[in-house]
């Protein structure tokens, strides 16, 4: 991993993120948010988070694994149930990792 490249990534991410945060707060006297953008923003968390989770869970070392033999997929289902049942970050992580490790120990 190239250090200069890594710093370029980090600083760029920081600039982008700060620009979004400061946008309306700093320039509220001159800036109004179009209603269409406001409506679209509502779906950003659901769409983006699902798009990050799905490939990380269904792709195994041998490519696409949409079966019960995929311990990541099964563990993620366990974690999703726990997250839905109790809105606890810690409990979700513990349940997901516990399921992942036990499935790997049993079948891996």
């Amino acid at each position, binding site marked *: 991993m190239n250090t200069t490249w890594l710093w370029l*990534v980090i600083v760029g991410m920081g600039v*982008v993120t700060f620009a979004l945060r400061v946008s309306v707060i700093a320039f509220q006297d001159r800036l109004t948010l179009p209603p269409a953008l406001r409506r679209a923003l509502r779906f950003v968390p659901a769409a983006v988070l*699902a798009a990050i989770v799905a490939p990380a869970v269904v792709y195994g070392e041998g490519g696409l694994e949409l079966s019960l033999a995929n311990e990541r997929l099964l563990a993620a289902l366990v974690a999703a149930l726990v997250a839905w049942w109790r809105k606890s970050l810690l409990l979700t992580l513990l349940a997901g990792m516990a399921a992942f490790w036990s499935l790997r120990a049993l079948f891996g």
Partner: protein
Amino acid sequence: MPTDAEQRRDEQTGERWGARASFLAGAKAAAPIYIGIVPFGLVTGVSAVSVGIPVTETIAMSAVVFAGASQLAGIQLIANGAAFPIIWLAALVINLRFVMYSASLAPHLRAVGLGKRSFAAYLMTDQAFALSVGQFSEDDNPFEGVMKFWFYSGVALPIWVLWMITTVIGAVFGAQIPASWGLDFVIPLMFLAILMPALRDRPALVAAAVGAVVAVAADGLPFNLGLITAAVAGIVAGQLAEART
């Protein structure tokens, strides 16, 4: 924290909700949130070093970006060897929600200047936004004008301090954990835990389902463009689903 001069001025005017009292009230109101920050910060530190990012850069990322979800996505993309404009674009899409928060917070920060507004913007998190705007819209909210800034800072600053401490702990101890443990699996689990409460209604569910399917189908796209494509598809699908109901 408020400066002594600001504190003296509040005492002279006999204001019950002075700068210091407002700041402390914010910090107290945010206390239940801290428990959620600890595992999130630890996981971010651990997963960064688990994909090979050095400890110094891991800490720098937490200070410069200070946005957990985009940091985790960035870490994943760095591990995948994505091109840097793609990682920036991913941060942009994931953090687009901050524009929405910025718009909600803006009227409450009218009383302070550009410096304090920028400070408040840098410290913006899902939690600090939700808690402060919630407090300010209560019928019996005692915080007005500049005191809104101090209350918000009281909520936001301890979250930042805790985020830095836990990232450092995660990064330092994470470096000792062998890769065979598969600890990087906590990244999708973390996103899953944040995703579930966001699935509040049918349109949000549609947005998530379309986002997930497109992301899997588009996984082979060059430069890891799959994530952006899937996010846009999900957002459009959510809006279509909302228009139909």
